[in-house]
Structures are given as structure tokens and as C-alpha cells.
């Protein structure tokens, strides 16, 4: 029995207009994400994957087709769909604590309660003690953790991540992937993670959707068979490497 999908993308195509002519960036994209699923959307650059995510967040409306949340068309941003961008979106003029408290504050949660929530999630990303610091006093990796904590602290139903670890160095990226896995496994939020990093997509996701070409089209979906909880060790298994090769082939278009 199939539960209704939380997020469904139905026949989405999108054109960008610039200086007189239009470019198609997405062509007839359809797929669905079920509750509690972690889906990775992987694609080459130019395949429109970030555009797709922006539509799920509600920042953009598709030229054709629709993106739905519980069957309702998404038209604008909503705290039920949290997003972590690739670039730094932590508010520089607020302390770490105030950043993480932001979502609950918007919900009208009391000061003491939201402080408790903030401390809880900061602890989960290993930033206890950094509450009063300003973002400029933190490293890029730490700021990314604040961003993730901030998004999770708002208890969104859907978590959207746009190449969120793309700007970090390899070691920090790997550490954050592990932390995200732990955090996610505790919350089991429905998640959609856009990336161009094949290994990252397999490590984190239950299912990988592959976008290719310009305009981007869905060329396949692959289920990731690894059980949870997962650690980065699975990267060394032959099954992982085979999956990686399959995805690389699909992305390169060798068919």
C-alpha cells in the first residue's frame, strides 16, 4: 500500500528568460518523495537541479507542471519546508544562539523554550559553548553546522538541501555528512538533497534521482540498498563502488 507522497513533482518544465530569448532548464520532470524518505537528486551542472529545489522551497514557480506538498501546489516559502543553501546563509548580525532560535521565535515560542530548543540542537551538532559567538568568529564548517541546527530546530516537515556541503573542504564535508546522517536518523525528516557529488548522494540517500542534460531530464532512479544506521565505512564496500560506477555511467550518458 503506497502512502500519499509528501512532495510530488509532476511534469515540471521551466524556462528562464534573459535578454530577449528563453532557455529551457528543466524538461518534464516527475518524481515523488514519500514520508521519511531521504532522496538525493544528482545531476551535472546546468541540469537545473538547484532550480528544482528552489521550486520545492517555494521561491520559484515552474513554467509548466506543478510541485506539490501533500497534494497542494507550492507557491511560496513555508516553515514546513526548511532549506540549507550551499552558500553561507547564517545571519552574520545575530549570535549563534539567536540564529538557531530564529524559526521558533517566528512561531511565537517563548524565550526560555526556544533557548532550550536551540541548546538542544546545538549540542547535537557539537556546538555547545558557542551560543554567544558571532558567525564571523566561526569557521566555514561550524557556520554550516549552525545552519543545519537552525533548520532542524524549526522542526520542518521537509528538509531541502542545495549542495549544502559543496563549499567545504573534503575533511569538513565528510565530518558534516556523518553528522547529518546521525541528526537525520534521529529525526527522520523527509529530505531532498541536491548534489553533484555521487558518493555523497549514495552515502546519504535511500533513493537517488538522476538528472542529466541541459535542459535537465530524469534519466533514472536508483534505490540505495544500505541499511541504517550508516557510517562512512560503507564507501569502501564493493556494492557502494558498483553503485557509484552505475551512477557515473548514467550521468555521463553512456547508453
Amino acid at each position: 500500500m503506497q502512502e500519499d507522497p509528501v512532495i510530488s513533482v509532476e511534469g515540471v518544465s521551466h524556462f528562464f528568460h534573459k535578454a530577449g530569448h528563453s532557455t529551457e532548464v528543466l524538461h518534464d520532470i516527475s518524481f515523488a518523495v514519500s514520508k521519511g524518505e531521504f532522496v538525493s537528486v544528482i545531476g551535472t551542472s546546468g541540469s537545473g537541479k538547484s532550480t528544482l529545489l528552489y521550486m520545492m522551497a517555494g521561491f520559484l514557480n515552474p513554467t509548466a507542471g506543478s510541485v506539490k506538498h501533500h497534494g497542494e501546489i507550492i507557491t511560496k516559502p513555508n516553515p514546513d519546508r526548511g532549506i540549507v543553501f550551499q552558500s553561507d546563509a547564517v545571519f552574520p548580525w545575530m549570535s549563534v544562539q539567536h540564529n538557531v532560535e530564529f524559526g521558533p521565535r517566528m512561531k511565537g515560542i517563548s524565550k526560555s523554550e526556544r533557548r532550550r530548543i536551540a541548546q538542544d540542537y546545538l549540542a547535537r551538532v557539537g556546538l555547545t559553548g558557542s551560543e554567544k559567538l558571532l558567525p564571523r568568529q566561526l569557521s566555514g564548517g561550524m557556520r554550516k553546522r549552525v545552519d543545519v541546527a537552525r533548520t532542524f530546530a524549526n522542526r520542518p516537515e521537509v528538509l531541502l538541501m542545495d549542495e549544502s556541503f559543496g563549499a567545504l573542504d573534503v575533511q569538513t564535508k565528510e565530518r558534516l555528512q556523518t553528522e547529518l546522517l546521525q541528526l537525520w536518523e534521529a529525526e527522520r525528516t523527509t529530505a531532498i538533497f541536491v548534489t553533484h557529488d555521487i558518493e555523497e548522494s549514495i552515502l546519504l540517500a535511500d533513493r537517488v534521482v538522476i538528472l542529466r542534460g541541459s535542459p535537465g531530464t530524469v534519466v533514472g532512479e536508483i534505490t540505495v540498498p544500505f541499511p541504517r544506521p550508516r557510517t562512512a565505512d560503507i564507501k569502501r564496500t564493493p556494492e557502494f563502488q558498483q553503485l557509484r560506477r552505475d551512477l557515473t555511467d548514467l550521468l555521463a550518458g553512456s547508453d
Partner: protein
Amino acid sequence: MRGMPEWIKQALAWIVVVGAIVATWIILDLTGAVSSDRLPPLTDVISAAGREAEDLPIAVLATAGRVAAGFVIGAVVGVFIALLSHLSTVASELLAPPIHLLRSFPPFVVAPFIILWFGLSVQAPIVFAATVTAFVVVIDSGEALRVVRREYPQAAQALGAGHVSRAMLIDTPAIIPAIAGGLRVALVGAVNAVLLYEMLTGTEGVGDLLIRGYQLFRIDTLFFAVIVAILLSLLLDRILVLLLNRATHWSRG
């Protein structure tokens, strides 16, 4: 010379600037190159200071108060209008004609209108200073809002912020570093505005001190008043810089 810490070099530079001005003054006076009814001797100016010492504090406070009030009101109004224009397409299109006019509207031209509509009231110089400030701040803030990294308001929206929260908690702090320079310029404009008003209407203040010096043909009083005006403006600027530094301490590094 090379090994000195920065602040000593800067302090020395200031001393050189002031010293050069004073030295030039004394030389011009002693050599008689400029007649004393054009350039009063330094000693005359100092005795003028003694004469005016009694009324000076009130005059300075009056002018400073008007400048401060007008500047703060104008800055707030300016940012508010810019935010309105930024967040609402309808508002931005409606406000476009007057804002476009503001760009070329000469600030001093407003003075007679203020005098006409507000007369010799307490609010007149404050409204004038606020208008002049708002002119600058609206345009500066508008441009600053346009280049704010869009990840900030987008993240705020995805966290549930409504328009008002987003305007006050996100857009406003984000643009303060960008408009800091414009705010300092606007402050000088506000000083000019208040001085002009006081000069044209003879209202008690530094501007009145200046125009009285002219009316009594006392060049020494005039020079003293100019020095007071410059020092007042410098003081207000330094206070603003202090406040701006505290408001933007998050952006350094």
C-alpha cells in the same frame, strides 16, 4: 618614522594639518598679505570666543539637538520608505515618481518651503534636517537593499518570517554597513540644513551666531563661529561613527 604604531602616525598627521592651518593663518596675518578686515588675527578670534562664551553652550546645544533629532527621524523614515519600496512591488511603482524626483532635487531648495509652511516653529529646522537626511538615506538604502545576498531573506522566509520580521530583523541589519558612508554624508547635510535655517530666520543657535557676526560686521566673531560650527560637525560625526561601529561589529573579519 617607519616603526611608529598607526595611531601615533594618524595623531601626528592631525597635528600637522591643524598646525599648518594655524601657521598659514599667523603668517598671512603677520605679513599683512591679507588685510585684517578679511582675515582677523588669531588673538582677535580668541577674544571673540571670550565674548561669546556666555551664550555659546545654549546655542551649540540648540543646534546639536535639532541636527540629532532631524537626522534620526530622517534616517528612520528614509529606511522605512526604502524597505516599503523593496518589499512591495505596488509600493515601489507608486513611490517611483517621487523618488526619481528626489535624486535631482537640490536639498537647499527645500529651505524656503519649510520656512513658508512651518514658520518659526520648533519643528521647522527638525523637519528640514529630516527631509535632507531622508533624501540621501532613501536612495542609499534602496540601492543597498537591492544588493543584499538573497540567501538571507530566503532563509528567513523558509524559517517562517513574515514581511515585518524580515524587514526589521534581516533587511535592516544587513544594509547598515552599506549605508554607513551615506549616513555620515547625510549628517553633514543635516548640519548644513539646520545652520541655514538658523541663518535665514535668526533662530538662536550656531547659525544665528554666524549671521549675527555678519550683520555686525565682526569678522572675528564670524571666524570664531565658523570654528565652532566645524568642531560641532566633527563631534557629531565622531559620535555617529562610534555608534555605527557598534552596530556593524558583526561584519568585520
